[in-house]
């Protein structure tokens, strides 16, 4: 596999190693660099200075074992059909921007990674394994990864909610697999559980724990199954074959926790509206897929009732309800 690292990433990591050395009273590495850098200043033209420094930093970067660190992890995943042959590592400053992306032709793999992550062997190994598992899923025809269709046919806000859920469910499925292989850092399972709860707040605490455990320990879901799961707690449990276990014989009674997000406006709310028949009709005019089990905040409820009251398409709803 052919690896390339962003020059600024190499530079900052090498400079950090110098500082580490200096703080321990070890000047050798820094002095050896300066000696070679001096030659660039004196013997290389100004025009070629930058390139020469990049080469020098890359040499030190490799010498310090960073290339091997990454290569080792990549080799665990490469070898299969269609796995990209080139990999580029770019620098990012934010944790939420870290990740991997496959080029459209599937030949190149791009990573965005922070210098801090690459410096920490455990953190780096986890990030690479997590992202490479995503890539393997994408490359697997059985997973049936498809970005051409939106997750929601209804609205951008629902698309945004479903996208968050898709990402989280896929992430935790991957982390479950990594844990079984002994590759998951401590505390990460709790973080994933909390992310899961925040996206399915209407499940309630106990049910959320059961569903999370099922998902964590389940086989890998396909992209199609993930698409179904994101639509709501009922579909999620149905795909996981635990609907009866979670909801019993009766109808699903959602729990709307204080501070959880309203599925329509996405704002956290402490005031959930009572889903009446009139309200359902009013909301369904704009959001046909919405069901009372998904919950609705009182502000949204007022807004849809108000709109419906003045809409000619809703003869059943009278002005009375807003008086």
């Amino acid at each position, binding site marked *: 596999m052919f690896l390339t690292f962003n020059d*600024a990433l190499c530079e*900052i990591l090498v400079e950090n190693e110098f500082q580490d050395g*200096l*703080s*321990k*009273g070890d*000047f050798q590495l820094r002095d050896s660099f*300066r000696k070679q*850098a*001096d030659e*660039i*200043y004196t013997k290389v033209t*100004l025009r070629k*200075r*930058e390139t020469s*420094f990049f080469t020098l930093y890359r040499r030190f970067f490799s010498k310090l074992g960073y290339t091997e660190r990454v290569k080792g992890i990549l080799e665990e995943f490469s070898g299969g059909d269609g796995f990209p042959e080139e990999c580029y590592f770019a620098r990012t*400053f934010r944790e939420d921007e870290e990740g991997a992306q496959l080029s459209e032709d599937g030949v190149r793999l791009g990573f965005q990674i922070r210098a801090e992550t690459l410096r920490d062997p455990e953190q780096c190994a986890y990030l690479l394994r997590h992202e490479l598992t995503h890539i393997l899923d994408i490359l697997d025809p059985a997973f049936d990864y498809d970005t051409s269709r939106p997750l929601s046919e209804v609205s951008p806000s629902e698309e945004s909610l479903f996208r968050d859920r898709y990402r989280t469910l896929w992430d935790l499925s991957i982390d479950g697999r990594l844990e079984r292989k002994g590759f998951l850092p401590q505390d990460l399972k709790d973080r994933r559980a909390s992310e899961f709860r925040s996206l399915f707040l209407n499940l309630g605490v106990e049910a959320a724990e059961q569903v999370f455990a099922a998902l964590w320990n389940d086989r890998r879901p396909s992209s199609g199954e993930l698409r179904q799961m994101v639509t709501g707690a009922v579909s999620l449990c149905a795909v996981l074959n635990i609907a009866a276990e979670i909801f019993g014989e009766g109808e699903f009674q959602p729990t709307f926790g204080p501070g959880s997000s309203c599925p329509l406006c996405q704002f956290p709310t402490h005031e959930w509206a009572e889903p009446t028949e009139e309200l359902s009709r009013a909301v369904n005019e704009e959001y046909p897929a919405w069901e009372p089990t998904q919950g609705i905040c009182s502000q949204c409820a007022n807004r849809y009732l108000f709109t419906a009251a003045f809409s000619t398409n809703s003869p059943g709803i009278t002005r009375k309800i807003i008086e």
Partner: protein
Amino acid sequence: MSQVYNWQLGRKMAYPFEEKHPDHQFAFVFNINRCIGCQTCSMACKSTWTFSKGQEYMWWNNVESKPYGGYPQNWDVKALQMLEKANPGKQEWDATKNGARRPYGAYGGMTMFEAASRRIGPEGPQRVLGYLPSDEEWRFPNTGEDAAKGPKGARGTYDKQGASLPEHNSWFFYLQRICNHCTYPACLAACPRKAIYKRPEDGIVLIDQERCRGYRKCVEACPYKKPMFRANTRTSEKCIGCYPRIEGKEELSNGTPWETRCMAACVGKIRMQGLVGIDKKTGDWSNDPQNPIYFLVKKEKVALPLYPQFGTEPNGYYIPPRWVPRPYLHQMFGPGVEEAIERYTAPSRELLAVMQLFRAQQAIIARFEIKEGPKVYETKINGKPWALFNDTVIGYDAKGNELVRMTVEEGLQKRPAERANSI
């Protein structure tokens, strides 16, 4: 370390080199009260000196909103914290000990040079107390722009009675910054390659690009964080005080020394730059009350140095913003803030005339003269009577040639009655 005299601190202080002074010193006065934060100065500098590859994050001139802004982020907060950590609870001024050579009293705390000995790293004690800003801290020069300081502990809110002088409860102000071309430069003191020097003719501090090896010790040491590292040449660069213009080599200037680009471009007319003579015996400024910079800093004492406690004797001076709470200004400009604001708020006849010279033209004004005019207005300021005179101020260059003539009252152009509406 040698002992050198720092008149801004009113005492001698430790410095890694012997005391030595140029013939003249590049100095400037910025009137914070007038700045509108338009960044024309920043762009004038950038389009002249730092528009090339590798200089993308390099702003030799920048204007930041205080208290939250900073380029690099939090540069001053970090420097002050380091000083406080080195000498806890003792970073204080004794403003009672003033006199001709200690105009603001005496500083009893530690400077960046003195505190350096308390922070011993693996390479031994630092020459100057400092830190190297991270890449992230250089990334956003406008962080905190126009963000006002509200009530303490209440995030995102403003005081309901925010605006009433003498101090506003909700406030911010623009701080204009270039290299201070310090009398005792920290960058120069820290450079292990001796690549930084102070020009003997005008005190402008420059980095010899041939000698620089990119160790970034100057970036680490300068408390104002004005030397900047250029990634493609692997050397540090900094404001050069537009020295070709100061030398009169600007093509259109006919050999007359011109002010720097950032000064000349200022649309708010907040800037004045010049050269002050140096008394080689004392290292202090030569007595020259007709030099506008000398007049503003030494005679009228309306302009104050930025963070004088750092100890570098910066040559940039600021007329403090009159609406800002005084403790903040005391920390930033040292003692003398009250007096400076008082004098600026009810300016003397002479000061009001000199204020007209700010950005009146491009050439450096070496001397001014005032011709008295009639009284045109009377009022009371802070309960005291105050009068406005329409005096005329005349600016001269170093050779005595008249450069500009301004009246206190703005000139009026009368158009002929038959073409009153034409342009």
